[in-house]
């Protein structure tokens, strides 16, 4: 009951600061920009003056799965950056400005406070990512080739887990530090570092969450869910639970006045 009230408060706040308008739009833009520029590359080169006579470049033929990867690639870099920047102030900012104290002097449980924030942020990012992938899916069917709606749902489901992990990392740093800029930097740095570690120890860390998008491509090509994707999803889920649990724990033990 209390949780629901806090959750609604978060939703209303995100409507008021128009995150519900701009985050979905940015994600749609990110999802469609690469598929479109790649499809229209010949025309764009022509319009920009064309190639000198006699040059021949072979433009690759893109399969629908390649195009899905283009959208996911944008999400992996700029999308993560947008999520980190957008979520940097959720708790850190409230603590800095004193709003968190105002809420927490009332008998509000810390668990409810954190999980309500996490849930509203997750809902916003998942909705945005889903809308982005639907836009991408629309263009894939229009310009590149068939991709079934079921395949799209699978992509959104597994990629959504990875995005939830990014949100959880951000919430975790939000409870640790008071400075929003630092939270955004650490969130982004952590995701990058995880990617580096995953590629260095590739043969050991087969179930690393960073591999989820690679396995999604594999899934689209073969048409069946690879077992490594299930493994990576499980690891991701466990990490999400640990991060959210850790956030609540840190928030409880940490001195608010500090």
């Amino acid at each position, binding site marked *: 009951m209390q949780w629901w009230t806090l959750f609604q408060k978060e939703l209303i706040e995100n409507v008021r600061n128009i995150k519900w308008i701009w985050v979905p739009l940015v994600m749609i833009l990110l999802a469609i920009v690469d598929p479109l520029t790649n499809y229209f590359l010949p025309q764009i080169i022509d*319009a920009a003056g064309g190639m000198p006579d006699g040059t021949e470049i072979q433009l690759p033929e893109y399969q629908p799965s390649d195009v899905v990867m283009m959208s996911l690639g944008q999400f992996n870099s700029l999308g993560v950056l947008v999520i980190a920047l957008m979520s940097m102030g959720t708790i850190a900012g409230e603590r800095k400005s004193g709003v968190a104290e105002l809420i927490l002097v009332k008998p509000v449980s810390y668990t409810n406070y954190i999980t309500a924030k996490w849930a509203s942020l997750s809902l916003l990012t998942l909705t945005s990512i889903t809308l982005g992938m639907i836009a991408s899916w629309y263009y894939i069917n229009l310009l590149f080739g068939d991709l079934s709606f079921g395949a799209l749902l699978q992509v959104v489901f597994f990629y959504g887990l990875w995005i939830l992990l990014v949100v959880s990392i951000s919430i975790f740093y939000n409870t640790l530090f008071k400075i929003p800029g630092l939270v955004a930097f650490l969130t982004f740095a952590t995701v990058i570092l995880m990617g580096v570690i995953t590629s260095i120890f590739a043969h050991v860390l087969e179930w690393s969450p960073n591999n989820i998008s690679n396995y999604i491509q594999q899934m689209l090509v073969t048409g069946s869910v690879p077992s490594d994707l299930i493994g990576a999803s499980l690891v991701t889920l466990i990490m999400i639970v640990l991060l959210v649990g850790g956030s609540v724990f840190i928030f409880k033990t940490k001195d608010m006045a500090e």
Partner: protein
Amino acid sequence: MEEINSINEIDWTDMLTVIVPMLVIQAILLIAAIIDLIRIERTNGPKWAWALVIVFINIIGPIIYFIFGRRND
């Protein structure tokens, strides 16, 4: 002459499917940012500077404003 021909060869209906959604998204971002800028009490830094950023920097301008320009307190 050759260049004019190559431009005419562009399939404009194809191009419209690309440009129109982009323009719509850009327009919504711009309008939302402007309305918010008018209604908000204070921003980080002068308001007129944010107005310039929003209007003159394509797509990125409104996003930068939403992330860095708004003050919640």
